[in-house]
């Protein structure tokens, strides 16, 4: 049950479960059905505060120093009771300013100072590494205890090669897990809903595991709490160890520990992450402010009983840090120790996950990217690579942070107890508190004060806690601990300025915070804030009353020329001229300071093109005169390229729209024209139909009413009726032809035919009629054969129509018509000319219009000869037919007879091997 393989597979199974929960949480977040939208989950996620240090170390500390360990939990309880005021304010600021970490928060408060952000990130990295080391140690130790019990765990780390060392592999596995966990995608808000869900789950696991051990110890190893306390009371030694007097440093130790825990709860990067960055709803704070202290109470309930029991019973392992594990093991249990191991694992992994993600965010955003962005050689401004770079940097940072933790663990971890390591980190995190908390309430705190305070406090911390730690591990000669460096006894790390009798943490905290706060306040009083710092200070301190500060924005320190250059770059000259309408001659060299209203106007103009956030950042960068920070660059690049793309698309769309509406207008025009033509056509058709109908009706009525008409008149009138009826039918036939031609429904049956034969045939058909009218018809065909593709009936109709027309318009006295057929390039040309008056140049196209009648003045003679009137449809129909057959029909000057000449041109049929089709 406790073999290595089982323990390891259970541990991996647990990690896999965590991963599933996280993936589920992320999925739900993407679907908009957040898994963490509950104050209980929020409170549980804050319980990431309880690490392996709590799980194993509380009992250890209680066993050594009595109830003093409780102070570590009273501090956060105090902080949470104040949460509705303080943490709510931080949450609100973080949401408005899109804060991603505590380094970002402090940097933002002091005018988005990149230097300050980098400083915080660096201190966090140095200060928190031991804490991560502590978790690795806890996992390794608990695993060793579990597997080797009842033998003592083999933990001589430094003597082994690192690849045999289990903590190294723990660190690597965790690194991979966190990379999968926390850097799956890049989210601008740096929220990780899946991670929060998993952390909340871990908080429940560790609580259940710890309560299980407590209940087992009190009610199974002993007969309830009464029995336990009776047995403790019997041992005066134990009573002394567990009394309040055992707290190191006495009263100062109490206060020091309380302050330490209070501040660290707010400033530890992982706490800031879950408390502020991952908060999804401000209202959750209210319930968390009592639910989280309740959680702390529950997880501490059995600490003293377990410590007492561990001291009373001769457990196999004398290390009090392992009592939680060794007590159930000593009772011969298998399942409970495994549960405890998982509980400890959850406490450790929870901390490592959140802490590493928070640290890697800081490292990438505050340390690495600003450097990369400044390096012009890398050309990071090209947008595509940035997100990839960012994720890559985070992943590398995660691995490095965990390896750093492992290194610290391997080199130093042995010489410190869990609690000691934890408190060193606490003290480091506390250095952020002055800059953060004072900056939250005092508008006058300056970036320079904050930076110097932070540096001084951290140096004091390093001198009084970190370096002595190295010394005690044997890496340094520890003589200076005893006598001070260079024999300066007032510089002794544990008794700075001769302050003795304090515990080392309270001692360190006192001096470091004194230096930190002293410099922050002192320097702030004597230094000036830049305009942006002033703005940010106002935004932070008045976060709960945002209305008060809007008016104080943009007390700019930029020149009109610079502002103009910026606006021109994004908006172009035209829009810029409008923004600067009342500053007529502002060139790029204009050194006048830009007035606030001009800056605001420029911001609004830019916001129209780039969106308000990017616009503000741009103006911000100009007014501040600094390089932009990473996120701003990202968001500007994003919005700018989006805007450009959108502009480009809009332009294209409006071009297309203009084109479409032009087409629509033209189509509409065409339709209207067609409609007008149709009306005209209908009117003309009705006119043309009425004319023969009039004669028919008139004579029909005359015949009806005049029964006594002479026979010859009756016959004459009846002839007229018949003729007009024929004319009517012909007209209707032509109108139908025309309609078919125009709608494309005219059915032609093209075939190969000989135009020569067809022409002769047509001449024969009209010959008699022409002769009757005295028309002399000449035929001049220059070829033997003229093969074309055409519909013989229709083509004959065309040729007859041309001959008819020519006859009608030929000279009245000596009418002559000539048909001429000749090859012309790849075509055959058939022309029909007459010796009439001809057709004026401007009339030549109009003769092909429907119902166009060529007016002939003094045409009385023609009528006398009985020439039928045309309908005005013959030529349009002929042209339609010829066009259908791929030819042309037009009017030109008659070459021989000097009258009108109509020319029909048809393409020659391709040479054919088979016999040509016979003409009709």
């Amino acid at each position, binding site marked *: 049950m406790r073999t290595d393989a089982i323990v390891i597979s259970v541990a991996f199974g647990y990690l896999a479960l965590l991963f599933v929960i996280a993936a589920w949480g992320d999925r739900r977040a993407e679907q908009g059905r957040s898994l963490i939208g509950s104050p209980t989950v929020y409170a549980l996620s804050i319980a990431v505060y309880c690490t392996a240090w709590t799980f194993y170390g509380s009992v250890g500390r209680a066993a050594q120093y009595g109830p003093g360990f409780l102070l570590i939990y009273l501090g956060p309880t105090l902080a949470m009771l104040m949460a509705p005021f303080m943490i709510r304010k931080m949450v609100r600021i973080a949401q408005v300013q899109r804060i991603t970490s505590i380094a970002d928060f402090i940097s933002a408060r002091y005018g988005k100072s990149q230097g300050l952000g980098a400083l915080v990130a660096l201190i966090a990295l140095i200060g928190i590494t031991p804490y991560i080391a502590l978790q690795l140690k806890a996992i390794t130790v608990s695993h060793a205890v579990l597997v080797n019990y009842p033998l003592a765990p083999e933990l001589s780390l430094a003597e082994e090669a690192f690849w045999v060392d289990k903590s190294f592999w723990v660190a690597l596995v965790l690194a991979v897990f966190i990379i999968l966990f926390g850097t799956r995608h890049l989210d601008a808000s740096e929220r990780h809903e899946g991670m929060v869900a998993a952390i909340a789950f871990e908080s429940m696991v560790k609580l259940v595991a710890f309560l299980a051990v407590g209940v087992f110890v009190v009610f199974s190893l002993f007969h309830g709490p009464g029995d336990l306390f009776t047995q403790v009371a019997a041992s005066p030694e134990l009573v002394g160890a567990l009394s309040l007097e055992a707290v190191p440093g006495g009263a100062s130790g109490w206060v020091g520990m309380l302050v330490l825990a209070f501040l660290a709860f707010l400033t530890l990067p992982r706490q800031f992450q879950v408390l502020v960055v991952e908060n999804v709803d401000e209202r959750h704070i209210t319930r968390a402010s009592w639910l989280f202290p309740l959680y702390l109470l529950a997880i501490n309930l059995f600490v003293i009983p377990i410590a007492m029991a561990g001291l009373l019973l001769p457990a196999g392992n004398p290390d009090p840090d392992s009592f939680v594990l060794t007590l159930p093991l000593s009772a011969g249990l298998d399942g409970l120790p495994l549960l405890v191991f998982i509980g400890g694992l959850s406490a450790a992994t929870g901390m490592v996950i959140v802490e590493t993600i928070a640290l890697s965010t800081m490292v990438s955003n505050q340390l690495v990217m600003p450097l990369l962005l400044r390096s012009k050689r890398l050309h990071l401004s090209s947008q595509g690579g940035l997100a990839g770079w960012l994720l890559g940097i985070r992943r590398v940072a995660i691995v490095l942070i965990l390896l750093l933790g492992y290194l610290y663990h391997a080199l130093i971890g042995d010489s410190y107890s869990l609690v000691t390591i934890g408190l060193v980190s606490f003290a480091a995190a506390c250095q952020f508190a002055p800059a953060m908390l004072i900056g939250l309430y005092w508008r006058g705190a300056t970036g320079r004060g904050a930076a110097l305070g932070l540096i001084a406090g951290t140096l004091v911390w390093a001198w009084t806690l970190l370096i002595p730690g190295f010394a005690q591990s044997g890496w340094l000669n520890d003589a200076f601990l005893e006598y001070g460096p260079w024999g300066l006894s007032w510089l002794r790390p544990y008794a700075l300025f001769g302050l003795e009798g304090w515990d080392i943490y309270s001692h360190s905290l006192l001096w470091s915070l004194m230096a930190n706060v002293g410099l922050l306040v002192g320097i702030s009083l004597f230094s000036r804030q830049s305009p942006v710092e002033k703005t940010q200070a106002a935004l932070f301190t008045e976060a709960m009353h945002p209305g008060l500060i809007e008016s104080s924005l943009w007390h700019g320190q930029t020149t009109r020329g610079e502002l103009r250059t910026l606006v021109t770059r994004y908006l172009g000259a035209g829009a810029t001229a409008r923004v600067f309408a009342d500053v007529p001659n502002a060139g790029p060299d204009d050194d006048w300071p830009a007035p606030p209203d001009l800056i605001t106007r420029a911001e609004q103009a830019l916001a129209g093109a780039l969106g308000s956030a990017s616009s503000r950042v741009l103006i911000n960068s100009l007014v501040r005169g600094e390089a932009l920070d990473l996120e701003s660059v990202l968001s500007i690049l994003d919005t700018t390229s989006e805007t450009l793309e959108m502009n480009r698309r809009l332009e294209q769309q409006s071009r297309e729209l203009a084109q479409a509406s032009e087409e629509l207008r033209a189509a509409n025009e065409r339709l209207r024209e067609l409609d007008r033509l149709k009306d005209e056509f209908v009117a003309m058709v*009705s*006119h043309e139909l*009425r*004319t023969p109908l*009039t004669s028919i*009706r*008139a004579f029909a009525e005359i015949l009806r*009413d005049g029964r006594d008409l002479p026979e010859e008149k009756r016959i004459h009138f009846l002839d007229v009726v018949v003729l*007009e009826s024929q004319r009517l039918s012909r007209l209707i036939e032509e109108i139908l032809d025309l309609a078919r031609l125009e709608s494309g429904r005219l059915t032609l049956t093209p075939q190969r035919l000989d135009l020569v034969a067809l022409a002769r045939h047509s001449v024969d058909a009209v010959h008699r009629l022409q002769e009757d009218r005295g028309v002399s018809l000449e035929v001049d065909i220059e070829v033997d054969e003229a093969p074309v593709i055409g519909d013989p009936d229709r083509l004959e109709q065309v040729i007859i129509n041309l001959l008819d027309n020519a006859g009608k318009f030929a000279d009245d006295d000596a009418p002559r018509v000539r048909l001429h057929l000749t090859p012309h390039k790849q075509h055959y040309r058939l022309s029909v000319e007459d010796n009439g008056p001809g057709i004026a140049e401007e009339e030549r196209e109009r003769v092909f219009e429907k119902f166009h009648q060529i*007016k002939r003045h003094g045409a009385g003679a023609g009528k006398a000869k009985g020439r039928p009137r045309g309908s005005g449809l013959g030529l349009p129909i002929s042209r339609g037919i010829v066009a259908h057959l791929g030819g042309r029909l037009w009017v030109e000057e008659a070459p021989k007879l000097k009258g009108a000449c109509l020319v029909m041109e048809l393409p020659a049929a391709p040479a054919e091997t088979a016999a040509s089709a016979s003409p009709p």
Partner: protein
Amino acid sequence: MAKVLVVDDEPNIVLSLEFLMQQAGFDVVTADDGESALARVEESPPDLILLDISLPGISGFDVLEQLRNDPNHARLPIIMLTAHGREVEREKGLALGADDYVTKPFSTQALVEKVKALLVEDA
């Protein structure tokens, strides 16, 4: 005996109108375009004109307008004949001073009665 001038470019229509008017007891003069119609009026003014609108050369409207502008013929009864059934043309004809307006094809009886009525009125 009253004299009627028939103006139309369609020979068969002229033929029918000529016959109808003669049958009704009038003298008939014919013209097949606007210019010759005006010439006939000048030669010997008729008592009534049956005037087609669509004529080669100047149109029936032009003829009507010229006659109405001539004080000698301002009151000469004129019946317009047209194959255009459109209301606007009817209005135009009446506005120009035509006494009546007959759409082709027409009822022979009705036309003869209109002519008679106008001539009696005039007399």
